[in-house]
């Protein structure tokens, strides 16, 4: 720690303007910029920083949990569970992990990977930790060795500082008293140097020397007051600097526009609240077929939900012709992904009158449910009775079932399983892909502080996942790669339609204790079904 960052000197050098100052901090900043080049620090989802992902490293299926650090640079904690645990499943002998920027030249130069620790009790469970040195769009690359050779899986990790911490009282008192001791020590040393230092052994200081010492100590006191004052100003300046690195999502303003000749429409204006310069608003990329996935969720009961896809009409400006919507106050959550693979969720509030608009088309979907009863929920604890039912009747007679309901502690990874049943209660035989996947879900906390858009491959953005996977390609075709992502079943090479399963598994972990509503969307034929389930997370185990 103490002298570390010096080493980045030479990295900064080649991009340094001739004659520019050589101050170490400036050089280190160059390094950060180098790593950031094009990367935008941000965090996907709202209030749900941990990453849960399900994927295949060659023949091995992994359930990955990544808990990014609160401050950057910092340590990300990583857990992996091998999912195929049957007797003839491929056995994993070891997993190695490496942190790599997701895009840009630095992504081509990974460091030496670290081995994960295999649990002694559970051979299928691995843990590890990695340094994430700069804010931005990262990936963790898992290299697996086992009975069927090697396999690679890359999971995108958006990393940002999400807070600065205060100082604990005990530590403050300790450091404060040591600081006082040091200040007093300087004054005492200066006095002794002026009074006694040059006296022959045994001699006693003259009155003149004593007087000289008092003057010197006065001078030292003034100097130390100035030094402490300067140190304080410096500290505050540094703290303010770091505070600017704390992630601020893009802001979004939602406006209802009613023009007499066209129908009612929604205008979304996105602005950068002034944060890192490298963040752009005009570099959004398609994420499972759309630039923006917009959830409308009516407050407070979460009884009405829409999943819509506004069009970009100018950089930072989106527009959507509104469908018919019941009146109410809605929370808007908009998922976008930057060219760097960096996902952000933008939020806004909007109060609407009854909207008589266009019918739903394409990938648009809506769902209605009973209001979540706030009386059942008491702060961060919730009773089991909150989970009133694990099957949800759909408007067309189909039913969606939550296969593994129950109360889970927060921060516990789980694959949430859901099945679609037809009008006869039999597994639906006409399941279809909705935007390329078997299912989509939104996990929303009752107080609106958590929103996570989850897919069969987990909480990671699909666009970022593809960027990461493309780097691991070793001759395999793109179709193989897609097929290797759970829930992204692609037609076989012969183009013969394959029958899709009627179930979907969604990897997630609740970030905090409390009541949640899970909106799950699946498709059969041309119908997009939206179901709502209530869930409860108990206090975290750790």
């Amino acid at each position: 720690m103490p002298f570390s960052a010096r080493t980045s000197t030479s990295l900064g050098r080649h991009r340094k303007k001739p004659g520019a100052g050589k101050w170490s901090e400036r050089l280190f900043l160059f390094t950060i910029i180098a790593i950031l080049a094009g990367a935008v620090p941000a965090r996907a989802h709202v209030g749900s920083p941990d990453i849960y992902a399900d994927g295949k490293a060659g023949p091995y299926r992994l359930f990955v949990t990544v808990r990014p650090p609160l401050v950057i640079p910092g340590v990300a904690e990583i857990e992996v569970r091998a999912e195929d645990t049957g007797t003839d499943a491929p056995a994993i002998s070891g997993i190695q992990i490496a942190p790599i920027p997701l895009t840009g030249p630095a992504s081509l130069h990974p460091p030496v990977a670290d081995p994960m620790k295999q649990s002694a009790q559970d051979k299928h469970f691995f843990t590890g930790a990695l340094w994430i040195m700069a804010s931005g769009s990262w990936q963790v690359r898992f290299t697996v060795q086992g009975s069927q050779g090697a396999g690679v899986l890359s999971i995108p990790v958006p990393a940002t500082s999400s807070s600065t911490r205060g100082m604990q009282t005990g530590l403050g008192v300790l450091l404060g008293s040591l600081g006082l001791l040091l200040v007093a020590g300087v004054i005492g040393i200066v006095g002794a140097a002026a009074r006694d230092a040059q006296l022959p052994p045994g001699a006693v200081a003259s009155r003149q020397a004593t007087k000289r010492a008092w003057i010197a100590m006065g001078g030292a006191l003034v100097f130390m007051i100035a030094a402490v004052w300067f140190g304080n100003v410096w500290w505050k300046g540094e703290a303010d600097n770091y505070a600017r690195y704390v992630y601020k999502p893009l802001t979004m303003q939602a406006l209802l526009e009613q023009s007499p000749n066209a129908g009612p429409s929604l205008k979304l204006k996105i602005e950068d609240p002034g944060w890192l310069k490298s963040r752009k608003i005009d570099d959004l990329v398609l994420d499972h077929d759309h630039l923006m996935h917009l959830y409308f969720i009516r407050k407070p009961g979460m009884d009405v939900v829409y999943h819509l896809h506004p069009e970009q009409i100018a950089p930072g400006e989106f527009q959507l012709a509104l469908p018919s919507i019941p009146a109410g106050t809605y929370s808007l959550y908009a998922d976008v992904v930057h060219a760097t693979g960096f996902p952000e969720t933008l939020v806004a509030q909007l109060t609407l009158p009854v909207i008589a608009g266009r019918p739903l088309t394409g990938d648009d979907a809506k769902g209605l449910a009973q209001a979540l009863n706030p009386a059942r929920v008491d702060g961060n604890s919730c009773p089991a009775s909150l989970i009133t039912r694990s099957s949800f009747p759909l408007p067309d007679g189909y039913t969606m079932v939550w296969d593994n309901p129950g109360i889970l502690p927060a921060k516990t990874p789980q694959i949430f399983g859901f099945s679609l049943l037809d009008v006869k209660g039999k597994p639906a035989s006409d399941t279809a892909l909705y935007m390329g996947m078997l299912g989509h879900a939104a996990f929303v906390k009752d107080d609106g502080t958590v929103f996570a858009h989850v897919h069969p491959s987990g909480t990671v953005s699909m666009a970022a996942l593809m960027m990461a996977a493309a780097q691991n390609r070793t001759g395999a075709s793109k179709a193989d790669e897609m097929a290797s992502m759970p829930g992204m079943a692609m037609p076989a090479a012969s183009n013969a339609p394959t029958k899709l399963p009627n179930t979907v598994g969604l990897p997630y972990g609740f970030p905090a204790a409390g009541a949640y509503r899970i909106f799950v969307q699946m498709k059969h034929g041309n119908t997009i079904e939206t179901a709502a389930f209530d869930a409860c997370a108990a206090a975290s185990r750790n």
Partner: protein
Amino acid sequence: MATTWNTSNLVPDDTGSKSANSIPWYLWCSVLAVTSVSIGAHWDVSWHRSIGRDTFWTPAHIAIYACGVLAAISCGYLVLFTTFRKPASMVASSVEIFGFRAPLGAFIASWGGIAMLTSAPFDNWWHNAYGLDVKIVSPPHTLLMLGVFAVSVGTLIMLLGSMNRAEQAGNAMLARHLQWMLLYIGGLMVVFQMFFRMEYTWDVYLHGASAYEAIAIGMPTLFAVLWQSSRSRWACTWATLIYTVFLEAAVLILPLFPAEPKLGPVFQQVTHFIPPKFPILLIVPAIAMDLLWNSTRTWKPWLTALASGPVFVLSLVAVEWPFADFLMTKAAANRFFGTTYFGYPEPPTSFDVLRRFVDPQHGATLWNGLALAMLFAFLSTWLGIALGRWMRAIQR
């Protein structure tokens, strides 16, 4: 406890040493402290250029903080022993601060030890609060460096006081041994001063004035302090010889140990610890300063300093400039000169890897810069002579 000890008010002598002719253990301990941090600091930089990532408990960090621990133990002992046990000879040669008694240098070094140990929890909190090592020049790191500086200055002053007393007592042998230790500490202080200038004196910067300005600020002060206080005719030469040997030893030894980068992006294949750059040829201005000062003993300090400025800068440039040219050639690309070692994050397009000078200067720009360096060297020398003369008279 103090009262019980007061009964033995007349402890005959300094029990820290077996006899008046040997060097007491606490001086060895302080010298070890300064040695430890010098090694630790270079090791740590090498660690970050080779491996990149660390925890608090790397051997390099332990070597750095061991300096604070050793200083706190040896000087803390000295302060408590002198204050409460009151051995006659040690009390006689001590200074008093807030009721505590010890040699002045012991107070300074223990201040440094406490500063270093304070910086550890402070630094740890800083990294948890704001992230790790985003900046080197942070308040906790500054406190650490001030602490290291105080430990070395305190050790120097302790040695000086002991040496001056030994000389007064006619114990020439002991004074001689203490002078050697003092020059050794002086050498390590040169090492540390050059460590702080590492980024400004990288070989690819040596065809610009700024590298020489960085050296001219402060280095002549240390030279003058050592020359004036140590009473050695060749103080600067000995100290820079120690610096040269120390750095070259690092160049030769560090690559013997394996290391691989744990952070990306990795632009250089690193398989072993990356050593520091070849030492600056400071030995030449050091010899020049010793010769000059030996023959200007009767001059006024400002006049000596005025002559020293140009001699220091020009003698350094005269050898370092062509030597830097040599360092850019294939002939220097070997284990001894160590110009083939690059840290893992150095891109192949960097000046260092390409072996090209950054922003080479010539003509008026260069001479303006060198003139400024000479001015710095003059002022630094003047300050050093004044400090050195004051320190020369230290007896406690």
